[in-house]
């Protein structure tokens, strides 16, 4: 499955970024082989003045992401992610990307069903 994780670094040993719309990068990989397939792309929503969550969620759909791991999703981002039919899971910032993938594979990550605070990533 094609997996995306919000992150602050470009390595599987780097940490999950709990901001979705305002994270610096997204890591994309095939969940069968994260080591071999991981690629890192700049978050295109980062520079906008508003609506970052919407833009990042739309980007997930464009990238044909099948599973999203992030901290939390604001109300607008969650609406878009739901319409795009992408299941999203919450991971903490203390997890590395490798650890988050492992935790998701083992079923330890909770699915995001409710929106977090709006504008939470603007810091």
């Amino acid at each position, binding site marked *: 499955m094609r997996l995306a994780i919000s992150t602050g670094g470009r390595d599987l040993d780097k940490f999950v970024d709990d901001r979705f719309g305002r994270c610096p990068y997204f890591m994309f990989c095939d969940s069968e082989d994260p080591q071999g397939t991981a690629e890192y792309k700049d978050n295109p929503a980062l520079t906008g003045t508003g609506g970052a969550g919407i*833009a990042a969620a*739309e980007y997930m759909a464009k990238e044909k992401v099948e599973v999203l791991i992030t901290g939390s999703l604001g109300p607008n981002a969650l609406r878009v992610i739901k319409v795009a039919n992408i299941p999203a899971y919450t991971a903490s910032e203390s997890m590395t990307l490798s650890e988050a993938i492992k935790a998701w594979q083992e079923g330890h990550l909770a699915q995001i069903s409710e929106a977090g605070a709006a504008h939470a990533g603007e810091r």
Partner: protein
Amino acid sequence: MRLAVLSGKGGTGKTTVAVNLALSWAPYRKTTYIDYDVEEPNGFIFLRPQIRNSSTVFLPYPEINGACTLCGKCSEACQYHALAVVGGQVMVFPELCHGCGTCGIVCPVEAVDEVERPLGEIDEGERDGVQCLQGVLKEGESLAGPVIRGLRRREKERSSQVEEVIVADCPPGSSCSVIHSAEGSDLAILVTEPTLFGLHDLRIAVGLMREMGLDIGVIQNKDDGGSLIREYCIQEGITLLGSIPFDLEIAGIYSRGQSLTQEPKWAELFKTLGERIMTEVTQRKNRGKTA
């Protein structure tokens, strides 16, 4: 003549100054008070005008019709991310839309219809010879700009009449809202208070007004007799137009929602202040002509 009353810091007395100046000019000149602080207009609390007209300010936003091919050009073009093309549909977020119309321009198949939503209101009325206008942004909305622009249009339509004094009660801060409210004024009257916070924000407001090329003058409210603001004005070569004392009676009248001009002592203060401002603007205009 257009006078913008602003401050930088909130709560320094913009509305107190704007309202009482307008009331003290009204017997001698055609005067219009306009509350541009649309996020929190409070001038009408003190003026209590008889409202004779209210109109709604609308903002356009897109609605996608059946011609849409899901090409995604609208969403790509939208700077505010008010559109998202996902899951075989175009999602529209009206509250993020600035009403610029770009989505409709870039759409290759005319699938974008423009609809409107109410964003705020403009009220007009009169009190003791002062023509009163205010803009009110709807609660929960964040786009003050369109309501301010609506007010400016209304102001322009009215002020074709000769020799009118327009007192524009501007929002606090130094954002776009302040710029749109103050631009084109003959004088920017900066109301400040003798606190470090007041001075800090006054400096920012002065910088903004200079950037905009507006003439400036300062009124010190809650004057405690100290030198903080006076020294700053001397250093910067800014005219101190006048001072309003730190006075319990003023606070009392204010908190009852009344105008200071109803008390002879304060009516006199504002009359003098108003005359000083008129002289200042006229002198600067004449200097401009000879220069």
